[in-house]
C-alpha cells in the first residue's frame, strides 16, 4: 500500500510540475511580446507570499520608523521611536513613558532621520537598527527581534543631531554628529560671538555586543562648523569615520548666503581607533553634562530612565594624527564610503561636479605631511593630494550616494530631480533616471556595508506634487522603487511614506524574519505587577491608589467585575496577556481614561492609569478584535463616593478569581 501511495504521489507531483511548467512558459511568451510593460509584475507579491527585502524608512517629522517590504512597498509596521503612538500605547502606558524622558523632561516628539542596521565584519547582521532624533539630540536602538524601541540615549553638547546614526563595521560605535555648533558648555552669550566660540561635538557611542546597550565613550569637540552627514570607513579604512561639514565660514545668520562663500568646505576624517586608544589610556577630560539614558527590558516589559551627569570630551588637537580635513566642494551633504573602503564621496550640493576622495592617497599625504594649512589646529590636506576622481557635471545638487555589488555608484540630484548611475574608478556616467520630484536620499539594501545588493534602489523624494490624488493642502510624502539589476535603471513604482522619508536602511528578509519574536514567555515575565495566571489576579488598595492585577485571554478579563473603587482614586490597570500564541494581542481601554488604549502582546504586561471622576459603574473592553467572542470581552468597575464603605472586591463569573 505504501509503495502504491508513493507511486501516486510521484504521478501527482509530475502532473503538478507539468502544469506549472506550462504556466511559466506562457508567462514568458507574454513578457517577450510586451515592449516594457512588466514593471507591475516585478513589484507584485502575490497574496500570502512574502517580500524579498525589509526596508526601514525614517518617518522624519513623525519621529517614527516605518517597516516596508520590497519590492511590494507594502507597509508592515510603524515602530514608535521618538514620538508617542496611541496605537501601541508607546509613551502613553506607564512602561514606556520613561523612554521619552530627556534632560528637558518628557519630550513626546522628535524628527527621526537616518536609520542604520547593525553590522558584523562590515556586513549587515540583522540584530538592531539605530536611528537619530534630530531636534532634541537622541539616538535610539530598535530590536529587530521584537521590532520595538529598546533604548534611547540623549546626546549632550549637541544640537540638530544630524550626522547620525551610522555604525562602524562591527557596530563598535554608533556615531552622532552635531549639525548646529553651540556654546560648550551651554551659556548665555551674544550670538554674534559665534565664530571661534561655538563648537561642534562628534559623539562616539559604544555598543555592547551582547545587550546592545549604548554609552557615550567620548565626544570630540570640533571647530564650530555644521556637521552634516557621516559614514564609517570599512575594510582598509575601518577605524576611520568621515563627516561632511558646511558653514566652515562660521556664519550665524542668513546661512543661505553666508555659509556658501567658501569654494570648498571639508570632510573631517576622524581616526576613532586612535582616539579610543587615547581615551583608554586616560586621555580626555570629564565634563559635567546632563543627559538621559533610557532602557527598555523585555523581561520586566518596563523602561527605566537614568539621568547621567558627565561626559568625556576630547580636544582633537591633543591627539596628533587623529583628525584631518579634506577640502571638498561645496557645502557637501552626503558623505559616502564605497564597499571597499577606498573611496569617500563628497556630495557637494552646490557643486557642479561630484568629488571622490581616495583613502590611500589621504594616507600617503598624511605620511608625507603634505598639509595645505590648518583650521583651529587641525591639519588640512591638499585637495589635489587626496582626490581620486571627479564625476564631471553629472547633474545639479548632488545629495547622497549608495553603491551596488557591481562597482557602480548611484547619486541623487535634488535640483535636477534624478538618480545618476556612475562607475567607480572611471567616474563615467552610465545612466540617469528622473525622480518625481526633488529626491533627497536613496537606499540600496546593504548599501552602507561591504556587501550591498544589486537589485533594488529606493529614492526618497521631497516633493510629490501631482503623483497622487490630492488630499487637501497636505500631500503624502513619497518614495520610488527602481530596478537596478540591469545596465539601465527602471522605475517600478511610487509608494507613499509615513512622515518625511529622510533615509532608509534595507536588508534581505532572510536576515531577520526567522529571528523575529513571536511571543513573550509568561514564565520569563518579571514585570513588577504581572499576574501570570488568573490565580494571581487581584485588586489591592494602598491609600487612594488602587492596583488592579488583571489577566486577559480569549475572550475574558480576570477579574471582570471590580467594586470598591472611589472617586479621586488613582487606579492602575496592570494587565497581563496570558496568551502564548503568535499574533494574539489583546487591548484594553477604560471610558474616560486620559491616556491611550493598551495593546498587549502575548505574555506581556502593560499598565495604564485611570482617575475616576464620577460615581457610577464604568465599563472597559478589549480594543483589538481577538476572537469570535471579542465583543463579549468586557467588564465593569463600580465607582463609589469618596470615603464610601463599599469594600474592594473583584470577581469573574461571580467567583473570586483563582486557579480552580
Amino acid at each position, binding site marked *: 500500500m505504501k509503495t*502504491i*501511495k508513493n507511486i*501516486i*504521489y510521484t*504521478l*501527482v507531483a509530475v502532473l*503538478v510540475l507539468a502544469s506549472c511548467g506550462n504556466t511559466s512558459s506562457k508567462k514568458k511568451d507574454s513578457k517577450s511580446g510586451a515592449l516594457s510593460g512588466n514593471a507591475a509584475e516585478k513589484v507584485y507579491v502575490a497574496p500570502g507570499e512574502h517580500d524579498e527585502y525589509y526596508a526601514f524608512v525614517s518617518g522624519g517629522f513623525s519621529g517614527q520608523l516605518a517597516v516596508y517590504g520590497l519590492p511590494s512597498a507594502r507597509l508592515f509596521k510603524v515602530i514608535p521611536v521618538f514620538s508617542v503612538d496611541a496605537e501601541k500605547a508607546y509613551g502613553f502606558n506607564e512602561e514606556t513613558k520613561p523612554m521619552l524622558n530627556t534632560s528637558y523632561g518628557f519630550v513626546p516628539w522628535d524628527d527621526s532621520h537616518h536609520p542604520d542596521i547593525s553590522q558584523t565584519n562590515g556586513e549587515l547582521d540583522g540584530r538592531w537598527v539605530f536611528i537619530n532624533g534630530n531636534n532634541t539630540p537622541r539616538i535610539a536602538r530598535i530590536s529587530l527581534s521584537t521590532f520595538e524601541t529598546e533604548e534611547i540615549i540623549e546626546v549632550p553638547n549637541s544640537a540638530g543631531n544630524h550626522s547620525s546614526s551610522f555604525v562602524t563595521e562591527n557596530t563598535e560605535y554608533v556615531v552622532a554628529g552635531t549639525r548646529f555648533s553651540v556654546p560648550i558648555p551651554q551659556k548665555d552669550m551674544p550670538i554674534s560671538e559665534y565664530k571661534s566660540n561655538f563648537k561642534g561635538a562628534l559623539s562616539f557611542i559604544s555598543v555592547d555586543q551582547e545587550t546592545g546597550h549604548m554609552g557615550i565613550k567620548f565626544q570630540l569637540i570640533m571647530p564650530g562648523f555644521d556637521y552634516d552627514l557621516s559614514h564609517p570607513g570599512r575594510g582598509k579604512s575601518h577605524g576611520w569615520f568621515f563627516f561632511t561639514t558646511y558653514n566652515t565660514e562660521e556664519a550665524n545668520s542668513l546661512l543661505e548666503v553666508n555659509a556658501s562663500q567658501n569654494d570648498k568646505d571639508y570632510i573631517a576624517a576622524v581616526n576613532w581607533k586612535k582616539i579610543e586608544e587615547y581615551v583608554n589610556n586616560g586621555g580626555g577630560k570629564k565634563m559635567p553634562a546632563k543627559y538621559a539614558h533610557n532602557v527598555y527590558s523585555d523581561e520586566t516589559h518596563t523602561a527605566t530612565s537614568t539621568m547621567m551627569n558627565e561626559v568625556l570630551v576630547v580636544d582633537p588637537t591633543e591627539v596628533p594624527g587623529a583628525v584631518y580635513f579634506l577640502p571638498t566642494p561645496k557645502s557637501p551633504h552626503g558623505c559616502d564610503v564605497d564597499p571597499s573602503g577606498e573611496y569617500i564621496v563628497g556630495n557637494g550640493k552646490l557643486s557642479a561636479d561630484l568629488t571622490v576622495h581616495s583613502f590611500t592617497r589621504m594616507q600617503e599625504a598624511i605620511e608625507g605631511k603634505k598639509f595645505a594649512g590648518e583650521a583651529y589646529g587641525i591639519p588640512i590636506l591638499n585637495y589635489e593630494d587626496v582626490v581620486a576622481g571627479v564625476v564631471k557635471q553629472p547633474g545639479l545638487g548632488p545629495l547622497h550616494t549608495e553603491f551596488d555589488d557591481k562597482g557602480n555608484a548611484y547619486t541623487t540630484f535634488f535640483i535636477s530631480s534624478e538618480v545618476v548611475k556612475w562607475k567607480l574608478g572611471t567616474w563615467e556616467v552610465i545612466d540617469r533616471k528622473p525622480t518625481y520630484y526633488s529626491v533627497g536620499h536613496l537606499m540600496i539594501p546593504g548599501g552602507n556595508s561591504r556587501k550591498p545588493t544589486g537589485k533594488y534602489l529606493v529614492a526618497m523624494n521631497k516633493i510629490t506634487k501631482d503623483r497622487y490624488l490630492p488630499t487637501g493642502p497636505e500631500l503624502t510624502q513619497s518614495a520610488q522603487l527602481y530596478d537596478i539589476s540591469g545596465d539601465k535603471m527602471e522605475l517600478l513604482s511610487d509608494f507613499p511614506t509615513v512622515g518625511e522619508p529622510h533615509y532608509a536602511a534595507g536588508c534581505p528578509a532572510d536576515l531577520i524574519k526567522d529571528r523575529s519574536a513571536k*511571543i513573550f514567555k*509568561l*514564565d520569563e515575565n518579571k514585570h513588577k505587577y504581572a499576574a*501570570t*495566571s*488568573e*490565580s494571581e489576579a487581584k485588586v489591592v488598595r494602598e491609600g487612594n491608589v488602587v492596583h488592579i492585577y488583571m*489577566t486577559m*485571554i*480569549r*475572550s*475574558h478579563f*480576570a477579574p471582570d467585575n471590580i467594586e470598591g473603587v472611589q472617586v479621586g482614586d488613582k487606579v492602575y490597570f496592570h494587565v497581563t496577556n*496570558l*496568551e*502564548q*500564541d503568535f499574533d*494574539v494581542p489583546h487591548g484594553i481601554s477604560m471610558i474616560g481614561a486620559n491616556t491611550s488604549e493598551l495593546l498587549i502582546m502575548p505574555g506581556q504586561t502593560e499598565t495604564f492609569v485611570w482617575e475616576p471622576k464620577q460615581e457610577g459603574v464604568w465599563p472597559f473592553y478589549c480594543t483589538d478584535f481577538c*476572537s*469570535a*467572542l471579542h465583543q463579549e470581552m468586557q467588564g465593569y468597575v463600580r465607582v463609589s463616593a469618596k470615603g464610601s464603605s463599599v469594600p474592594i472586591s473583584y470577581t469573574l*463569573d461571580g467567583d473570586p478569581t483563582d*486557579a*480552580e
Partner: protein
Amino acid sequence: MAIFAIYSCSSDSSSNSENVEVERVESTPAEETTAEVDPMQDKGIGPISSVELGEIDETMAAEGKETFKTLCSACHKIEKRFVGPALLGVTERRTPEWIMNMIMNPEEMVEKNKLAKDLLAEYLSPMANQNVSEEDARKILEYFRSEDNKQ
C-alpha cells in the same frame, strides 16, 4: 490509476498539506461520517501518535499542575464547566493521545476532529494554542491522571 488517486486524496486530505492541488479535484463534499466515534479509540490529530502510560508519577503531575495553572486555568477548571469543559474524568473519556493532541494542536483539532468539533459547537470559544511543549503536555496529562485517580 485515477481511481487510486482520488481514493488516496479523500482518505488523506487532512494530513497531506502538499496535496492541495489534488484536494481541489475531489473537493465535492467528502462523505461526513455519521457513525459514532469511540472516544477511547480516537487519538486525535497532531504530533502525538502513542503515549506509554505507567504508574502515576506524582512529581510530573505536580509540575503539570503548575503549567496548567499558568497556561490553561484561565479557561478550564477541574471540577466545573467554565469557558471550556470541566476536566475531571477526562482521562476516562479520552485517550491520552487525544488529550495531548488537543493541548498541542487545538486549531487543527477543532477544525477536523469530530470530538473536538462537537466540543466547539457546545462551548463556542475555540481552544487557544498556548504553545505547550510535548514535555509539558505530557506532565499536564499526568496531572489529569492524578486528579482522576483521587476520585
